[in-house]
């Protein structure tokens, strides 16, 4: 009888195993991509127009400091705290301008901030829906009242955008929300785009920004690298880049065109579809265990009952 239940077990294990094994294969086979929504809001950063004045950085911190719990970052040479001097995107800095210089003639500014993906990994992985993508504007926003601070969004983001406040007892995740909670409400535009003196940051709908970017590429093909960064990266982002130098040199990762979240969700959904597999597993295991126990009863029965109820 033990042989039979063992066969059952192996059968069951085989089934469960097969399901799990099949999952990734299925996930790879189907590659129906979600359509891109060009009506979502985004920004186009044209590195060739940027003069590195950092007005966008100071506007961002001015507008969002209270809502985003951002503070000024002190540099080592500045004991009097005269300047805000962030070195990188941090728990206090949502956007940052950097200069990349290869030679006196080959250089470029570059602006970092959230890419507002069409299919954001951070939203996909957040266990408590603290990262949410607005259905209409497509803005990826952070809800600190829901966040548990697990930092899975940081692990998941291929652009390394979400930042954590490591030095605070009550920390939060910091990332660009396209001024959804601040300037967008009052002025209808993100603060960085509003203050940019050279028009290097355009704010608008993704479709319009894409058209503008293509127009610029067509008009001045020699000025730009022929690549709109964000058009296809990870299934498309709402923040787009035009650059004169290859993006990799500017610290932007070279990425595939598939959204990682499509891959992981497909596997997770295959295993947990309708919660059928876990319930079936539980039911089958219960059946086997109870039957095993019934078989056991006659052997040990009798003497046991009185024994442990003295």
């Amino acid at each position, binding site marked *: 009888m033990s042989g039979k239940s063992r066969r059952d077990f192996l059968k069951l294990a085989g089934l469960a195993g097969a399901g799990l094994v099949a999952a*990734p294969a299925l996930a790879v086979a189907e590659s129906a991509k979600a359509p891109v929504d060009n009506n979502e809001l985004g920004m186009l950063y044209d590195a060739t127009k940027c003069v590195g004045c950092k007005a966008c950085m100071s506007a961002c911190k001015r507008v969002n400091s209270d809502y985003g719990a951002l503070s000024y970052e002190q540099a080592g040479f500045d004991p009097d705290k005269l300047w805000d001097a962030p070195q990188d995107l941090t728990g206090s800095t949502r956007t940052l301008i950097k200069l990349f210089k290869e030679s006196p003639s080959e250089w470029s500014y570059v602006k970092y901030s959230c890419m507002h993906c069409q299919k954001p990994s951070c939203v*996909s992985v957040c266990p408590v829906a603290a990262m949410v993508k607005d259905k209409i504007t497509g803005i990826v926003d952070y809800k600190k009242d829901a966040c548990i601070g697990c930092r899975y969004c940081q692990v998941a983001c*291929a652009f390394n955008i979400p930042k954590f406040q490591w030095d605070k007892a009550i920390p939060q995740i910091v990332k660009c929300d396209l001024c959804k909670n601040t300037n967008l409400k009052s002025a209808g535009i993100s603060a960085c785009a509003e203050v940019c003196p050279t028009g290097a940051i355009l704010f608008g709908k993704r479709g319009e920004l894409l058209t503008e970017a293509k127009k610029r590429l067509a008009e001045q093909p020699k000025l730009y690298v022929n690549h709109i960064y964000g058009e296809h990266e990870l299934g498309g982002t709402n923040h787009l880049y035009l650059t004169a130098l290859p993006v990799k040199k500017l610290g932007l990762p070279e990425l595939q065109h598939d959204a990682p979240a499509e891959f992981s969700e497909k596997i997770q959904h295959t295993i947990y579809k309708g919660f059928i597999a876990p319930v079936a597993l539980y039911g089958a295991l219960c059946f086997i265990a109870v039957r095993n126990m019934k078989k056991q009863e006659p052997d*040990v029965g009798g003497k046991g009952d009185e024994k*442990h109820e003295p």
Partner: protein
Amino acid sequence: MKNMSHDEYQIQRGKILTPSFWVLLTLTVIGFTLIAVRFIWGIGAVSNMSDGYPWGLWITYDVATGTAIACGGYAVAILVYIRNKMSYHPLIRSAVLTSLFGYGLAGFSVMVDVGRPWNAYNFFIPSQWQANSAMFEVALCVMAYTTVLAIEFLPAVLNRLQQTNWSRARDFLDTYHGRFGLDTPVVLEKLDKLRQLALRIQPKLDKVLIFVIVLGITLPTMHQSSLGSLLLIASTKLHPLWHTGFLPLLFLINCMFIGYSIAILESVISSYGFKRPFEMEQLSGLAAIVPYLTGLWLAVVVGDLAWRGQLANALRLDFYSGFFLLEFGLVASGSLLLFSRKRRQSPRWLFITAVLIVLGGALYRFNVYLIGFNPGQGWRYFPSLAELLITVGIVAFEILGYQVLVKLFPVLPRLHGHEDPAVTQPHDLPQPAPQQA
């Protein structure tokens, strides 16, 4: 329900306040002091984690690896209740106890690690549920499984409550009579009510226990595979040697062979530490299962690497390939050694092979969560001393708790062929009894 029989277990006799108790207690206090520092000055004050490496030692060891090491209860439960090998039943209670500690403290570590633990109630608010997230599944399953383990351990507590005559409580009351506002007869009456309650609950619990136990087999199957799914999203950061759609399957098999190996290790170590005879028959039986699981796991690893064209990367002998080969070699060598029946009969070889396999299996989890994880240029991570001491403190607390509880409750397998006085008078621990030979 007779396989729940309590006669299979006994209370380990001996002093509670041993030298190792004090060492472990010191480590625990250091760890918990540093945890206080973390809550006052932020995670950055004690840890080397960064925005590039947002998950460090705590998640990698305490959660991802610690729960696998705590899978002894899961692995032995499959063997006993599903494969119907009742001869392993005596091992289950100590396995469940270590699992309870492992999982309980993994949950505790998570609360230390997460930045905003006060928001954790959101896991119970349906509007916040996020079924796309593997983390959501892991969190709910781990919470549920910890509860299940506590219920599985309950019979040991109830059994003890029924048989005790509260000698320690009596001593305590005698010494401090009248102080703390304790009135001896009233307290004793209440304690007796507790015993009556335990007597009433026990049979009811026995009736439903099997359904709880099966839940305790289903839940780890779910969340151990999901621990692998957690890293599926990091397709640009996790090295291709480890990033594969088979992560959930590999983590599931991995926790099973770690579970059986840990059950062997625990039994060998507690036999040695508590000077009990080795449970050779059960141990060599467990050891015979392990090579099939590791063999399957190694086959999936190699097959998957070949399918994705990564075999050359695996043999390149660079940093990543080195760690991959080490992980692979540890598991493979431990398994090969176990194919010999003779070695499976030797406590020494059982110990060595189990250590090799647990180390290899644990290194696999480290590789996936930390070593193979590269967020981009410029990021480095190695745990800080304080971070390490917090983990050490939590592990020390785990061992401490196990040591104490096996001396308070009937957890360890009953010794056969030994006339054991502890059996006939299960109350009265603090006799100046010499340790069992």
